Structure formats: C-alpha cells, structure tokens
C-alpha cells in the first residue's frame, strides 16, 4: 500500500495516502474535536462539508489553519493539533456559534446527548464574549419531528442524510449570511413537503434543532386515568438498544427487563410487537405465495416484485414519490398496525370494554411510527388502532421519570395472549430480517416440507443492497433483494418503472441497517460499532428463541383459530391489510 509519513504533535506516524489528518490523529489516540463531520462507517451515512471549522489544526509552513476532517496528510507534514493558535481559533469558532444559540440546555430535548454541549464542556467555555443578533424562529411541529431552527448550527448533516442517503430532499440550506438556516422549501411545515418522516435528520443532528415529538406525558396521563385500560407493545429493535441508555454495552439484550419496566410503569397489559411480527409473516407470507404462484402460472396482471410494507417511512416514500407503483408493496399492515387492529377488536372484546376505553401505546425504534398512528385508515371513527407511539429514547426517559432502577430489574415475561413470539419476529429489527422471516415460512409452505435449515445467511449483512437467489425445489428459484436507505429503494422503483426489475420479492427499510438504527434509537453519534453490536444482538436473540418460525407461534395459531380464521381471510383482510394513497404533488393546470 502507498503510505506516507508525517508528524502529528511531535510523534511520527505512517498512514495510507489519502488519509485525513483527523483519521491519522485518531489512530494515534489524538481526538481532534469535530462538529459538522459525521460518518457512520460502512453504513452509507456521511457528511463531510468541512464547514464548521471546529477541527482546525496548525500545519507548519501553511499560512491558514487547516480543517483536519477534510485535509489530507502529505509526506513530511508537521501538524500541531493543540498549538495555542489552533486552540484559540477553535474556541473562537465555538464561542461565535454559541453567541447565536439559545442557552436553554436544561429544557432541551438533546440535553446530555448534544454534541455542541459536550464541546462547550470539553473546551471549558465559561462565558460567551460575543454579543450579537439572535435567531428568532418559531418551533415547528409535525406528527413525528419537532424543528427548532434557533438551535441549527448549519452543520448540514440532516441535509446530507435527507438528500444523499434517502434521496428525499425535504430540508436543506436556504438564505445567506445571518439568516442562513436549514429549512424546508418556502418554510413550509414538514407535513406539507415531500418529507417521509424517517427521522434520520433527528438521529444525526448534533444539537436540539431536530428532535422527536415527546409522548411520555400522554402515557403518564393515560395510566393515571381510571376510566381507561392501557396496553403497550414493544418493537423488536428496542430490546437490543434500550440498555445503552442505562450504561449497558451496545448489543445488550434486555427483553425481560423491558417487560418488567413496562409493568412497573403501570401498563395494564404488556404485550409484544414481535407477536404481531409473526402475524405479519402469516399475512404477508400468504400474499407473497399467492402472487408468486399466479405470476409463475403466467398471470400478467400480478404485481411482481412484491415489496415489504412494514417500514412507515418507506410507505410514505412510495405514496409521495411512486404512487403509480403502490400496488407492488404488500397490502399487509405493519406489525404495529396489525397489533393495534387486533387489540382494539379481539382483545377489547375479550376483556369486555369498548375500544375507546382501551389505550394502545407502542414503543418503537422509529419516529415515523408516530405518524403511522395518526393515519386515518388505521383507526375506526377517529379512534386510532394505536393511540400513539414512543421511541426507545422516550421509554428510557419514562423509566427514569418513574424512579425505576432498570439495571437491577428482574426479568419478566410479556403477557398472553399477544405476547408470545419467535426468532423470526425478532429479526424484523434488522435489515434482511423481514425477508428471512418470510422465507422461513413461505419456503416451507411452498414446498410442503420442513426446512432443512432455518438460517438464510445470504440475506443477512449490513451492505445497503443485497441480492440472493433462493432455490425453492419444485417451484422456482426465488430472486430476492434486500435494501436499506430510500435512495437504494428508489433504484428498485426505477427498475420496476423501466420493466427491468429482476426480483420476485424485495425488502425495504429506510434506516441504516434497518430498525436497529431507527431514528428513535439511542444516539450513536456516528459510532458504527454500536449499530453492528445491535445487529449481532438481533441474531443472537433469534438463536436463543425456542421457536424460530412465525407459523409455529402458538399464540398466532390460536388467534387464527379463535378469531381470524385463515391468513388473508375476509376478516384478516378487513383488519390486517390496508390501502395506500397517491400523495404525490400534482399540478392543477388550467
């Protein structure tokens, strides 16, 4: 490999050509502060504008200070990362930023997770010498995301993920000079733009400029209300991430503690979205088999590839960008939606209360799920199937608010009858998981034989686009693709439009690595090892399950026997399937 030698802080180092000063210093254990720079290594998320100047270092012989994040190492370069000049410049940059930043850390939703706050603490900022103009933007609310532009430091990480990673482009830099800020076009509310509410902007925002809508107060209110019963469901990816909020290593599996904590908070019924993930496989799997058989029998009207429909940001994406292709995704509701529809009918009847007296809450790794709860079609006469959703981060706050010592909680079980689940359900939390869970059931049903192997390693991994051919003896060689990131999903949609899509079945998730890095998960601040640890934990949780195929879940078998009849029956069509809308912007030409 072509390497070069240079000196950083009086120590010589050898690095591959093209390495930035930031990376070279990092491998020597020198941590140069950064702010706009963001990189989720190997997961396609990055922002490298070199704009904030917090990482400036002195390069001997160079007139200006150099931003370490985008300056490449040169042979015999002499770099000083902590010279008086560099430290002063860095401090001034930060002080200027803080001179137009609200000093409301105590009430800020990012407090404790704010990178600007950490920098100010690390640099020992005690006063801000500059008195200047202050931005005066109003806070903006959408069902999922709160924007407080006064806290925007123009790092433009959100813009990078929105444009480059998701190919959505709802927010970006507008105006110039002091009024320059990240905003939507024409300053509209996110709801009125092409935003799909994936929330990755929230996940990467270093400050409180972008945050999730907080529903913890609603939960406390509803639990205290004697007139309603409360039930809660927990998504797969939450159980491999929540522990981080309580100091546990990334990838800790805390399923039992979550069930215990939710009971301690006071929910009347603590159920599991994993149960309805298994139910989703029954419905979606049956739909896959039906469409595939029709397609293989030569039916030209059947839409192939069938695509997954669990990810709410992905649903928003095809409704807003590809409504003409909205017949391709499965009509199956998401596991959150299926759970809500079942709990408000079957379960409310079972405990003998009207549906409006049963409050259903979900804990999700996601902020788009908050919007999904508000979809009119996912409710009855204005009573939502899932009343509202909280993120993994909000659950952590709720546990702290309720004085619960999470780490010392003994494990508890989810309640019956909507609590049992399989290994196939827990892997819904990672990219490739819905595909694998569907294959475990569909291949077995198609061939009529027990699978010789449960693990479909070929659809696992953390690459943004993966494809595989799954031989189904006597039926076909099934061509499947798994993608995450809506830019990758867009590629598939364009293939379909052009009639060149080679796949039978496609799984799409919007977030990097799937729900494990959903926008509601604990902040990782660009540390990809955290996401990888969650990914490994998801498959570990699968291995630990005694049952690993959805169709073998006894509580799913029971609900079909007792309530739904068959997968894709009339009743399940009514309750477990949905329709999609054309939400693309239209020109009204006259």
């Amino acid at each position: 490999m072509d390497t070069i030698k240079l000196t950083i802080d009086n120590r010589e180092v050898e690095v591959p050509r093209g390495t930035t000063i930031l990376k070279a210093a990092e491998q020597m254990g020198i941590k140069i502060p950064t702010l706009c720079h963001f990189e989720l290594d190997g997961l396609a998320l990055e922002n490298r504008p070199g704009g904030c100047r917090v990482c400036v270092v002195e390069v001997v012989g160079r007139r200006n200070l150099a931003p370490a994040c985008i300056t490449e190492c040169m042979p015999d370069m002499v770099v000083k990362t902590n010279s008086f000049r560099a430290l002063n410049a860095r401090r001034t940059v930060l002080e200027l930023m803080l001179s137009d930043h609200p000093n409301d850390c105590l009430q800020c939703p990012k407090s404790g997770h704010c990178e600007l706050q950490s920098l100010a603490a690390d640099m020992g900022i005690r006063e801000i010498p500059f008195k200047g103009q202050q931005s005066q933007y109003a806070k903006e609310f959408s069902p999922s995301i709160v924007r407080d532009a006064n806290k925007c430091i123009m790092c433009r990480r959100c813009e990078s993920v929105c444009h480059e990673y998701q190919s959505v482009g709802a927010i970006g830099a507008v105006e110039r000079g002091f009024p320059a800020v990240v905003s939507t076009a024409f300053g509209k509310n996110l709801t009125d733009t092409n935003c799909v509410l994936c929330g990755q902007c929230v996940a990467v925002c270093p400050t409180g400029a972008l945050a999730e809508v907080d529903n913890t107060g609603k939960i406390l209110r509803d639990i205290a209300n004697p007139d309603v019963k409360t039930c809660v469901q927990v998504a797969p990816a939450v159980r491999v991430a929540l522990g981080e909020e309580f100091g546990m290593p990334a990838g800790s599996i805390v399923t039992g503690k979550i069930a215990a904590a939710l009971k301690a908070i006071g929910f009347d019924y603590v159920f599991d979205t994993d149960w309805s993930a298994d139910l989703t496989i029954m419905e979606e799997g049956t739909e896959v088999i039906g469409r595939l058989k029709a397609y293989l029998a030569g039916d030209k009207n059947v839409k192939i590839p069938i695509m997954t429909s669990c990810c709410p940001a992905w649903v928003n994406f095809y409704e807003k960008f590809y409504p003409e292709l909205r017949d391709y995704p499965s009509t199956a509701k998401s596991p959150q939606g299926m759970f809500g529809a079942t709990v408000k009918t079957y379960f409310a009847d079972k405990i003998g209360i009207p549906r409006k007296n049963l409050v259903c809450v979900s804990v999700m790794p996601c902020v788009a799920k908050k919007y999904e709860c508000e979809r009119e079609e996912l409710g009855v006469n204005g009573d939502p199937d899932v009343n509202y959703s909280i993120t993994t981060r909000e659950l952590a706050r709720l546990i702290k608010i309720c004085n619960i010592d999470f780490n010392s909680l003994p494990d508890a079980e989810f309640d019956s009858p909507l609590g049992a689940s399989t290994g196939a359900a827990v892997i819904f939390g990672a990219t490739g998981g819905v595909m694998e869970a569907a294959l475990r059931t569909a291949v077995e049903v198609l061939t009529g034989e027990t699978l010789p192997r449960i693990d479909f390693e070929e659809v696992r991994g953390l690459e943004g686009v993966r494809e595989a051919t799954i031989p189904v003896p006597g039926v076909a060689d099934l061509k499947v693709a798994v993608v995450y990131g809506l830019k990758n999903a867009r590629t598939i949609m364009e293939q379909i439009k052009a009639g060149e899509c080679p796949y039978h079945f496609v799984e799409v998730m919007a977030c990097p690595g799937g729900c494990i890095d959903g926008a509601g998960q604990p902040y990782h601040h660009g540390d990809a090892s955290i996401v990888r640890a969650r990914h490994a934990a998801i498959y570990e949780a699968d291995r630990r399950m005694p049952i690993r195929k959805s169709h073998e879940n006894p509580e799913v078998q029971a609900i079909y026997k007792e309530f739904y009849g068959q997968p894709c029956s009339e009743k399940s069509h009514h309750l477990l399937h949905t329709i999609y809308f054309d939400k693309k912007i239209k020109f009204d030409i006259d």
Partner: protein
Amino acid sequence: MVGPKVKITEANYLKIKDICASFNNNPGELINILHKTQGEFGYLPEEVQQVVADCLGIPVGRVYGVVSFYSFFTMKPKGKYAISVCLGTACYVKGAEKILDALKSELKISEGGVTEDGKFSLDVLRCVGACGLAPVMTINGKTYGRLVPEHVKEILAEYAD
C-alpha cells in the same frame, strides 16, 4: 388523503417546461434556468419553482435554496416600473442613500417593496458601471444620473400612466 396541489396556468406551465427543455432539463443549469425564467415572469413564485423542480427531477428545496441564496432572484413580483438605486461605492459617497430615502418617502415603500397599485418596486444594487454619473438609479433599465433628492418627484412623474 391526497398530495398537495400546485395551481398554475397552462400557458405558464408550458413556458417553464420550454425553458427547462432548452437547457436539456439539466439540473446543473439550474441558475441559468432560473435566470431565464425570472426574465420571463419578472419573479419566481412558489408554483414556478415547483414546475422547475419537476422538470429537472430535483427536490423543490434545491430550487428554493438557490432562489433564496442569490439576491438577484426574487419571489415577489416587481412593479410595472422597477426602480433600482445603486449603492456602490461611488454612488454611496455621492449621496445615493439620500436618493433612496427620497424614493422611500415618495412611494411609501421600503427596499424590496412594491407600491400597493403594483406600479413601482424599489430595490438596491451594487454598481451599474456608470460611476461617472453617480449617484445613479435605473427604472426598467433606463439610467438616471447625477441625481439629487429633489429630482425624484419629477422623474416619477414621467411614469404617471
């Protein structure tokens, strides 16, 4: 449960489509396209930016980002007579600010504004290359030089129609 609607007349829609097509719908030509489009319409309202974005296959936020960044582009319609006062160095030294003040009080609008009847709009710019005539203003491209505030009223009277 439908997407947002953008109202525009067919004639305007087709005009924008033609302009974009004349640049091969190339997003790299955005600034030139906006330049030409503003030349056509006098300003760049939201619906015009939406059509440009649609033709070029880029998010409308990209278009708005450019329009809001460059002071040349405007989202407000200009008056029938667009007045520009030069505040370049030479004009400024020669008292351009007083000319601007006289215009403001005569028209009862501020910089960037349009009179209620839509007749006059008032903007400032930097240097029209007529420093020898400082201070200078232009009305619909016609240059008026060596101005003193007392001239303002009689010049505006030329545009009485």
